């Protein structure tokens, strides 16, 4: 038999839902352990105060905000792949979009932890929501942090709804392969899907609308996050280039993360029939494109800092290269600007090993990009009396590790509970059975 059939799609894609193998259990244990360590570190911080972190005034933001922005950025690729590529009818999205969407949701869930972890009094974090109260306290809609609250929560809501809409036909497939209690659960999640023509027609229309609704959010959410920095007047932050630069960076890191996640997934669950190397190749090309934008943005930042003749701005940018944080800057430039370049060669971007290695480097580089923006700018602000060097503590690294634990726990649960490849769309792409070549061609 050559190539998958409709029945083999169901069998292969749903296989992970039934038999957890040793690799899976190992990965889940590791993720839970990381999560537990992160929880311990956070508990330390809640009891003793933020002083357990390495903050060194005037560096008041550090690893937490860096990691927050990192995860928000990761959360970009999912919606881009599922919504934008759907609207542009890029057919290569089918194999990967489900997992990418799941990644988006979990990444945003991870990012959403960080405002609470980051604030000094986590027990009052609810002050950030504009809830009606008798004391007539209200929030400040001028503050970019407030915009953040809305941007991230909107993005989370829309991508979650979009995700579940996309899952409906597949949930029905799972329902049909399970029995008893689980079957009832999946029956609820598929909203009584029967696969009738009428349902398909409405479904596709709804999906299209949601895709259209989600698309602007891809641009808005990271633009808003970038305003956290761009709206402040701190040298190194106060720059109009930030929104496009951040969105490009987000897509760059998001696509890299999709590669990082999907490669092992494909290998472990033997989904090579559905997720081909050309899927990854497309992602790599997207990375090359956005990475190029990023490199250009880095150059523009330096040019403007120099051309503006603003001594504060230029001082910060010079300090990034030659100051204490030179290694952060070097890591960023190497990972984001240079590391993806080998992907220009087809051999490299079709090699699983190189795809994986470079995607990891991009993830590292994008984390350091945010670290570079946050830590080095705050360490070298207007008044030279306040120049310091910030070094994070094990608590911050622990919480960051915990955030990966949290993310991977969700992701691993997802692959165990839901089909990680969109069954219905894969089938759409396949050659229908009992049809001749001529009929397919005529269609």
């Amino acid at each position, binding site marked *: 038999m050559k190539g998958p059939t409709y029945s083999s799609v169901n069998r292969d894609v749903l296989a992970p839902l039934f038999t957890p193998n040793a690799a899976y259990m190992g990965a889940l244990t590791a993720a839970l352990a990381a999560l537990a360590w992160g929880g311990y570190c956070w508990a330390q911080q809640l009891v003793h105060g933020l002083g357990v972190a390495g903050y060194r005034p005037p560096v008041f933001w550090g690893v937490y905000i860096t990691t927050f922005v990192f995860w928000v950025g990761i959360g970009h690729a999912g919606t881009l792949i599922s919504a934008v590529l759907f609207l542009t009818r890029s057919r290569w999205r089918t194999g990967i979009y489900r997992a990418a969407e799941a990644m988006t949701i979990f990444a945003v869930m991870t990012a959403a932890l960080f405002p609470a972890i980051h604030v000094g009094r986590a027990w009052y974090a609810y002050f950030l929501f504009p809830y009606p109260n008798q004391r007539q306290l209200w929030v400040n809609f001028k503050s970019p942090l407030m915009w953040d609250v809305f941007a991230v929560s909107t993005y989370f809501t829309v991508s979650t709804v979009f995700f579940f809409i996309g899952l409906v036909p597949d949930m029905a497939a799972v329902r049909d392969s399970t029995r008893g209690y689980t079957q009832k659960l999946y029956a609820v999640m598929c909203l009584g899907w029967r696969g009738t023509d009428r349902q398909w027609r409405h479904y596709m229309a709804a999906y299209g609308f949601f895709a259209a609704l989600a698309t602007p959010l891809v641009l808005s959410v990271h633009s808003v996050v970038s305003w956290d920095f761009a*709206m402040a007047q701190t040298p190194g932050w106060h720059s109009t280039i930030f929104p496009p630069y951040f969105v490009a960076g987000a897509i760059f890191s998001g696509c890299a993360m999709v590669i990082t996640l999907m490669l092992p997934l494909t290998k472990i669950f033997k989904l090579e029939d559905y997720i081909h190397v050309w899927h990854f190749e497309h992602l790599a090309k997207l990375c090359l494109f956005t990475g190029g934008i990023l490199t250009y943005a880095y150059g523009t930042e330096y040019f403007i800092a120099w051309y503006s003749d603003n001594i504060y701005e230029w001082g910060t940018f010079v300090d990034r290269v030659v100051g204490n944080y030179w290694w952060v800057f070097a890591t960023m430039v190497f990972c984001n600007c240079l590391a993806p370049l080998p992907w220009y060669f087809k051999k490299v971007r079709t090699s699983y090993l190189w795809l994986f290695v470079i995607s990891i480097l991009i993830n590292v580089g994008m984390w350091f990009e945010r670290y570079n923006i946050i830590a080095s700018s705050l360490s070298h602000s207007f008044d030279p009396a306040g120049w310091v060097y910030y070094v994070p503590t094990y608590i911050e690294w622990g919480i960051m590790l915990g955030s990966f634990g949290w993310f991977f726990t969700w992701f691993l649960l997802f692959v165990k509970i839901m089909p990680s490849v969109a069954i219905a769309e894969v089938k759409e792409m396949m050659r229908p059975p009992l049809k001749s070549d001529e009929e397919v061609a005529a269609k």
Partner: protein
Amino acid sequence: MATMNRRDFLRNSAIASSATAVACTWDPKVPVENVLPYVHQDDDVLPGVAQYFATTCTACASACGMVVRVKEGRAIHVSGNPDNPSAVGLCTRGHMVLTETYNPDRFAGPLKAGQPATWDDTLAGLQQAVTQARTDGKAVAWLGQYRTGSLRRLLDELGAGIGLRRVHWDALGVETLLAASRIAFNKDVLPTYDLAEARTIVSFGMDFLSTSVDAMHMIDGWSKARDPKQGAFVARYVAFEPRVSVTSSQADNFLPPTPGTEALVAMALARIVHDKVKYSGPASALVSGVDVAAAVQASGISQEKLEQVAGWITEQPSVVLPGGHANASVDGTALAVATLLINEYAGNIGRSVVFGRELDLGPVNSYADVKALLEDARAGRVGVLFVDGVNPVYNLPIGDNVAEALAAVGTVAHFASGPNDSIVGAAIVLPTGGGLEDWGDAEVIAGLHSMQQPTMNPAQDTRSVGDVLLALGKVLVPAAAAATEVPAPAATEAAPALADGASPAVPAAAPAVVAPTRAGFDAADFGAYVKARWEREIFPLSGATDFTRFWVETLQRGGFFQDATKVRADLVLTTAPAIAGIAAGTEPALVIFPSPHLGDGRHANQPWAQELPDPLSTYSWTSWVEIAPATAKKLGLGESDKVKIKTDAGEIEVGYFASPGVPENVVAVNLGNGHEQMGRYGTGRGANPVRLLVSATDPVSGALAYYGTRATVSRAAGASDVFAAVGNIDQDGRPIANTVTVDEAVAKLEGEAGSIVHLHSIPLDERLVSQGITDMYPEPQHPTYRFGMAIDTNVCNGCMACVVACNLENNIPFIGPDQTRKSRFMSWIRMDRFWEGEGEHQDVRHMPSLCQHCAHAPCEGVCPVLATYHNLDGLNAMIYNRCVGTRYCANNCPYTARRFNFHTWQWPESMHLMLNPDVSTREMGVMEKCTFCVQRIRAAKDSWRDVGQTVPDQALQKLTACASACPSGAITFGNAKDAESTVAKKWESPRAYTLLGELNTKPGIRYLARARFSDGAVSDAGGHGSAPANHGAAPAHHEEG
């Protein structure tokens, strides 16, 4: 749930809802507090209303006037006493009187060999010991700090009665200056130096802006001399000393002679001045033998430079100040005499070097006298030794074996409020109440009789020194002195005594010294003794008739202050001073300099004294060595390396500061840390530099030579514990602390329009500016007040009095050495230090940096919960309860003025009693910053509103804690909306600029640029178009309009 009836439902829901309510109200972070009523309320205590007591500071020998603020029976703040002419503000050490009172290590009662004892037993034991010693023919000795006023008198009386051998010594003492005064003027008092009128101030090492006696008074004169408003000149300050100190950091010309040649330079200068003015007085012959060329050769200071300095000196009026600790070498007295000689030639004696307000610190003994006493002690010739407020084990060189000498004394009794290195073994501790609980008085400056009154009930079972002396005298003196006639007060003093009446400062009306009578010991307590003495001796000076009234007024005013006139004294010098020169050597000469905050080390257990960064190195909580940057480079030192300093006496290992103000042939270590036993905050920090001294003395005065020991410097193993609070040595070309040249400053005096400060500014779009559009948001409304501040950096020397005053007023916690190393200083004022110059023109710029209370505050817009906002008074207000702690405000503050509570900082038991009840303490996770002392503003507004008025300028000028503390009057507060207010006028000064004004934050603080002589001025601000446009000033105009 079918079985649940109505009653069960109601019961369950009641439990559930009350449990929920309880869970929601209980917050583990909020401590349980009980409100207790006053059972017996004092008549004069009104809860919530502060009382003020005018008293005298006891932190050092200067005895400056001080006002203590008391709330509900607890002293909570101290500041300078404006009625007392001795000082305008209060230095950092003065504020330590308060923390000393509440120090957790304070003695709770008498101790004997470390064990608690009762006062009765302790005093009985002491009386017995004294009797025994006298029977055995052993000395009863007294080693203590300088004492003036009633305590000096009581000591005289007791000394006469029991034959007390007294040695009064201060580690930062004046024996050298006194010796010079005796030689030059034949006077046992010190002249005062009037800086206010001086055109040129030449100093040979005097720390006149920080630790020298009478510094507060001299700072006042200094700030007047530096103010370009005072006639069309600014005083030039020339410093001849080995290292840039807090004081000489203000120098316009810093000229370090080769170590050991300072006195030669002074004599050469005397010669040149002598020749220049064609002096023909009696002292003319004294410089005939001076070889200027040899001095030039030896000192490395060129003849042209000396000629130039001499030229400045001859421009009247000038003043030449004698050496302080920086120049306390074996030639200390010779140098001091030489400076008096220069003053004589320049005609300054009687003009700027004057008597009339002379300093009389009581009996003054030298280090040599202390050594002699210890020698006797070691030989077993001392039966009882009283130690009063000095710490010889710490402050004397190790070669003196002080601990061994103390151990050989039969009974050692310490008057101390907390532990120190000298209280060891079987010593008796007689705990004193300190400056806030005890009666006393002081007469350091002639004519200024300063009153010290108790401001609160003793917090511990303590007695004042005077009370203990009275108790001893009551028992001992009748037996000992019954047969003898009343002696003259100074007859038994070990040092040449000073007769009170001899001073010409006290006008002719001064009565003859009233012989002390035995009756003095009948006083019920020392308070009664003080009162009796005032009635007897000081009341007659006042010319008043009703003593009760005089006494009440004295207590209200903080003393009785006589006017003084300048009195000239003739130079009686007949021989030129002999100059020995410090030991020659190729190694660098060691300077031990007093810490501006720890003094001679006595304040080392005061956490605030430890935590305040040094104004120059900005290090805290430790000791360090200052070496030349070139030396550091030569040794290949990394940032956190330790340095070993080795002399013939010993070695220490400390971190280093590569100071641009230290020449390569000098190393300097700060005095104050390195205690073996100094309570929880002072023990085991840094190293004791006195351990490096070889007991060399100035042969004339007997003073310990703090300067001149040859030391080798090498790299040591291990990491140092120093941490710089200020990140960068200079301002990297940024216009933060700006200067103008003196020529510009005097050409355009205060009140004239237009700025002379050259600032980097980005031009706004002319089309918008021409239409008056400079802002996106409208100006905030300020209907009545726009509180603002003017800070004159021209007279700020970075002493940090403002910082510590603010800390105490606003309940700002100290955070300890570990947290300071993470830069988490909580002080709302950060003292920026930018070291711009080098060589002769050092240009160290100090600038208090605090919340600028911007009208367009960057912090306000970014707070997501509106925890910070601009109020109608122009304050940038902060709501702690609303703050979630996103710290966005702090990131967006260009002045980095915001402080974050990384932990819930703790005040140890007893220190929390010092907290100001008007200011809430802050929990972890909350942002805070300068409030312009909003609690004081509120109180002032309330009380003036009661009489239907707005607060007048006079009541606002020094309202904030920082402004009231500043000894040089650099900080002015007020209502900038009132065009007639002092602050509004200062805002319009040609030297005024707003910090980072180009950001259009419209700060509520304007700085007045420092005036520098153009021969040493460096140009400010890089970037394009250094246009003299005062950016911040223009928008503020329309705010007023």
